[in-house]
C-alpha cells in the first residue's frame, strides 16, 4: 500500500536533525558519567537475579542495592562486588544475592584475581546476552511462521487491574481483529522505585507490570495468535522510575513493544531529569539488543497544550527522541515515534490540520513505525460524536500511511474500555481500513496547498524551538516549560536520590557489552 507524499524543505530537515543531535550530545555526556539504582538492579536481573524477600515481598535486587548503598559500594556499580563474591564463595549470583539478604557482608570478603574475575564475568555477560538473543529469535520465528498483519496495526488497550481478566479481554480483542495488545499499567506504578512481583489482580486504572504478568499475557496472546493465524504484538511500559528493569523483564519474556520516552517521566510524572535521561539510555540499549520497538509519548503534550498552537513541540520532541534512540543503538525500524489526532473538533478545517500534521510525521520519519494516537482530550460523554471523531482519525491514518494505530474508544471520557467498547473500535477501524485501503495511492496533495504549507510551518517552528533548546541546553529548556507547558526543575522531581556519579572503579560489563554489540561504544 502506497502513501501520498508532501515536499518538506530538505535543508531545514537536515538542520533540525543536526540541532537535535547537538542537544542530545550535550545530555549524553552527562548520562555517561552517571548510573542509577534501577540501572544496577536491571544489571542484576540480567545476571538472573529474581525473587522477593520477607513478608513485605521486597524484590531481592532492591535489597541488594540498599545494602551496597549502606556499605558505600554503590559508585563502583553492583556487578563487580556481587560477581567477586560469587567467585570467592563459589556460588552463583542468585545465591550471593540471597546470602546478602540473609546477612552476608561483602565488605569482609577478599578480592579474586583480576584474571579470574574477567574470565568469569565474560562468561556471565555472554550468558545474559545469549538469553535475550534466544528470546528475540524465538519471537522472530513465530512472526515468520504466523505472518505479519497489514499496517496500520490495530493497537488496543486492556486495563482491568486484574491480569486474568485482562487475558479474557485481550483474547476477545484478538479474535475481533486486534494486532497489538497493550496492558495499561496501574495508576502510579511509575512512581514506585521497585517492580512488583508475581501475578496481580488489584490495580487502579490499569494492571501492575510484573514479570509474571508479562509471562501470563504472552502465553495467552501466543495461543490466540496461533488460533487466528496472525502474529500478535504485546506492549507494556518502560517508563517511570524502573525503565531499565522493565526493559529487562520485557526482553526476557518476549514483549514486542515498550512505551519508552526520553522526557515523558519528567514532564508528566515529575520524575527527576537526570534520573530519566540516564534510565532511558540503558533501557533503550536493552530494547535495541532485544529487538523491541519503542513507542514515544509526544501525544501527551497535546492533552495539556493546544494541538495547533503547540504542534511543533511534538515535532521537536520526536527529533530529540530519535537522536537519543540512535545513541542507544536503536534502528529507525524500532522507533515508534508518537503523535496524535487531538485538535479541537470545533475548529473549522481541523481535518486539514490533522492530515498536515500526520503527513509531517510520516515524511520526517519514513522508516519508523510511527505511532498515531486517537482523540482523547475532546472526547466527551457524547459517545456517538466520539465515534464519528474516531472514524475521521482512522481515515487520516489509513490515508497517510501510519504504522501503529492506537484505536480510539468511544467511551474515552468515561471509563477504561469495556469489552464491547473495544469491539466497536475494531468495527470502525476494520471498516475504514478496508474501505480506504488504496486511497493513499491515489492522493496527490496540492503543491504549496494548505497541507504542504502547514507541515513546513510546523517544521519551521520546531526548528526555532530546537535552536532555543540548543542555546540554553535541554535541562534549562525543560525548566522553562517548553514542552506541554509544564516546568520541571533540575534538582526537583522524584528519584534523584537513586542517581549516582560513577567512580573510577565503576564497572558494568553488561552495559559495555551491549554498547559494543550495538556499535555505540563511546
Amino acid at each position: 500500500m502506497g502513501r501520498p507524499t508532501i515536499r518538506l524543505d530538505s535543508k531545514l530537515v537536515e538542520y533540525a536533525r543536526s540541532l537535535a543531535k547537538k542537544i542530545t550530545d550535550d545530555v549524553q555526556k552527562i548520562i555517561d558519567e552517571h548510573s542509577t539504582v534501577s540501572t544496577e538492579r536491571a544489571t542484576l536481573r540480567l545476571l538472573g537475579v529474581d525473587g522477593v524477600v520477607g513478608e513485605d515481598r521486597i524484590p531481592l535486587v532492591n535489597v541488594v542495592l540498599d545494602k551496597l548503598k549502606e556499605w558505600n559500594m554503590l559508585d563502583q556499580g553492583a556487578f563487580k562486588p556481587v560477581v567477586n563474591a560469587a567467585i570467592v564463595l563459589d556460588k552463583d549470583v542468585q545465591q550471593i544475592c540471597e546470602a546478602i539478604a540473609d546477612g552476608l557482608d561483602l565488605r569482609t570478603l577478599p578480592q579474586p584475581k583480576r584474571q579470574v574475575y574477567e574470565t568469569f564475568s565474560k562468561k556471565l555477560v555472554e550468558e545474559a546476552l545469549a538469553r535475550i538473543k534466544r528470546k528475540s529469535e524465538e519471537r522472530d520465528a513465530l512472526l515468520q511462521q504466523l505472518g505479519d498483519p497489514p499496517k496500520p496495526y490495530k493497537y488496543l488497550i486492556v486495563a482491568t487491574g486484574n491480569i486474568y481478566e485482562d487475558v479474557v479481554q485481550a483474547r476477545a480483542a484478538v479474535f475481533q481483529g486486534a494486532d497489538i495488545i497493550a496492558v495499561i499499567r496501574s495508576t502510579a506504578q511509575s512512581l514506585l522505585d521497585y517492580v512488583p512481583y508475581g501475578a496481580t489482580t488489584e490495580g487502579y486504572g490499569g494492571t501492575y507490570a510484573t514479570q509474571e504478568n508479562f509471562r501470563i499475557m504472552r502465553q495467552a496472546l501466543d495461543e490466540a495468535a496461533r488460533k487466528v493465524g496472525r502474529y500478535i504484538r504485546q506492549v507494556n511500559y518502560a517508563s517511570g522510575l524502573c525503565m531499565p528493569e522493565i526493559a529487562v523483564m520485557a526482553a526476557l519474556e518476549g514483549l514486542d513493544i515498550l512505551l519508552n520516552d526520553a522526557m515523558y517521566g519528567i514532564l508528566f510524572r515529575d520524575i527527576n531529569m537526570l534520573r530519566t535521561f540516564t534510565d532511558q539510555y540503558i533501557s533503550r540499549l536493552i530494547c535495541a539488543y532485544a529487538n523491541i520497538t519503542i513507542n514515544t509519548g509526544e501525544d501527551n503534550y497535546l492533552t495539556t497544550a493546544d494541538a495547533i498552537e503547540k504542534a511543533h513541540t511534538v515535532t521537536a520532541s520526536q527529533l530529540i527522541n530519535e537522536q537519543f534512540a540512535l545513541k542507544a543503538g536503536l534502528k529507525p525500524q524500532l522507533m515508534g515515534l508518537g503523535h496524535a489526532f487531538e485538535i479541537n473538533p470545533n475548529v473549522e478545517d481541523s481535518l486539514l490540520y490533522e492530515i498536515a500534521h500526520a503527513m509531517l510525521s510520516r515524511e520526517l520519519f519514513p522508516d519508523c513505525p510511527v505511532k498515531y494516537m486517537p482523540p482523547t482530550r475532546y472526547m466527551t460523554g457524547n459517545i456517538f460524536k466520539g465515534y464519528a471523531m474516531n472514524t475521521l482519525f482512522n481515515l487520516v491514518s489509513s490515508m497517510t500511511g501510519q504504522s501503529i494505530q492506537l484505536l480510539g474508544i468511544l467511551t474515552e471520557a468515561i471509563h477504561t474500555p469495556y469489552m464491547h467498547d473495544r469491539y466497536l473500535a475494531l468495527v470502525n477501524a476494520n471498516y475504514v481500513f478496508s474501505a480506504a485501503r488504496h486511497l493513499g495511492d491515489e492522493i496527490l496533495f496540492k503543491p504549496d496547498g494548505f497541507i504542504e504549507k502547514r507541515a513546513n510551518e510546523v517544521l519551521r517552528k520546531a526548528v526555532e524551538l530546537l535552536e532555543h533548546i540548543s542555546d540554553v541546553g535541554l535541562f534549562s529548556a525543560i525548566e522553562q516549560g517548553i514542552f506541554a507547558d509544564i516546568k520541571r526543575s533540575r534538582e526537583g522531581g522524584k528519584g534523584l536520590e537513586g542517581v549516582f556519579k560513577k567512580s573510577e572503579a565503576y564497572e558494568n560489563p553488561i552495559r559495555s557489552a551491549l554498547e559494543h554489540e550495538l556499535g555505540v561504544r563511546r
Partner: protein
Amino acid sequence: MSERNLVRPYGDQMDDGAVQLSFTLPVEFGPLAREAAKKFCEKLGFYEVTIATMEDLSEGYTFFVVYGKTDVAVDLSSIKVIAPKVQRLPREKIDELVLQKLKRPIVVVGATIGTDAHTIGLDSILNMKGFHGDYGLERYKAFKVYNLGAQVPPIELVKKVREVGADVVLVSQVVTQRNIHIQHLTELMELLYAENLRDKLLVIVGGPRITHELALELGYDAGFGSGTTPSEVANFIVQELLKKRGL
C-alpha cells in the same frame, strides 16, 4: 412544567416510553443469547423489546443493541435536585464584596490528591486562563491561590493548609476506577478532622465523575462535576464562606 408532572422517555410520540440500551452478556452468540437479552430487558421493565443487533464478541460473549418501551414514569414534583446553590455575581462584584467584608483575599489551596495525576480540570478552575472563556480564580482580586498540582499526598495538602492559613480547600479527583477517589477523599477528610481543621474550612471537591450528592455524603461542602466553570465555584465559595464567617 407544572402541568406535566409525570414523564417517561420520548421517541417520536409523547409517552411512548422508547429507550435504547446496549450491553454485553457472557453468553455464547446464538438463539439462547438473544432470548437471554430479551428476558433481561423485560425484567428491567421493558416491553416490545427489539434486539436491533446482536454481535459475536467471541469466546462466549455477545453484544446487544436493544430498543424497548416502558410504562415507568417519574413524577417531577417529587424530585429534589441536589446541587450547590449559587447566586451569580460578576467577577468585579465578588472582588468588591470580599475586600469590603473580609478585608483580605480568601486563601485557597488546591490540589489533585493521592495517586491521581490529572491537573487539567483543577487548573481550569484555578489558572488565570480559566475554562471556556470564563476566567479562573487567580484572576480575581478576591482570591489568593496556592495550586499544589497533582499526586499530592493528603498529609502534604494539610500541611500547606496550616502553613498559609487557608480558608478553602479545592481537591480534584479524576480517576475513579475501583472507587480509588472515595479512598483518597475519605483519607483527606479524616486528616482534616484529626488536625482540627475541618470546621474552619470550606472543603470542595471536583472532577468529571463527582456529584454534589457524593461530596455531601463524604462530608465535603460541595461537589462539582463535568463542565463546571470557575465563576460558579467562585460564587459558591464567596457566598458560603462569608456565611460561615458570619459576614
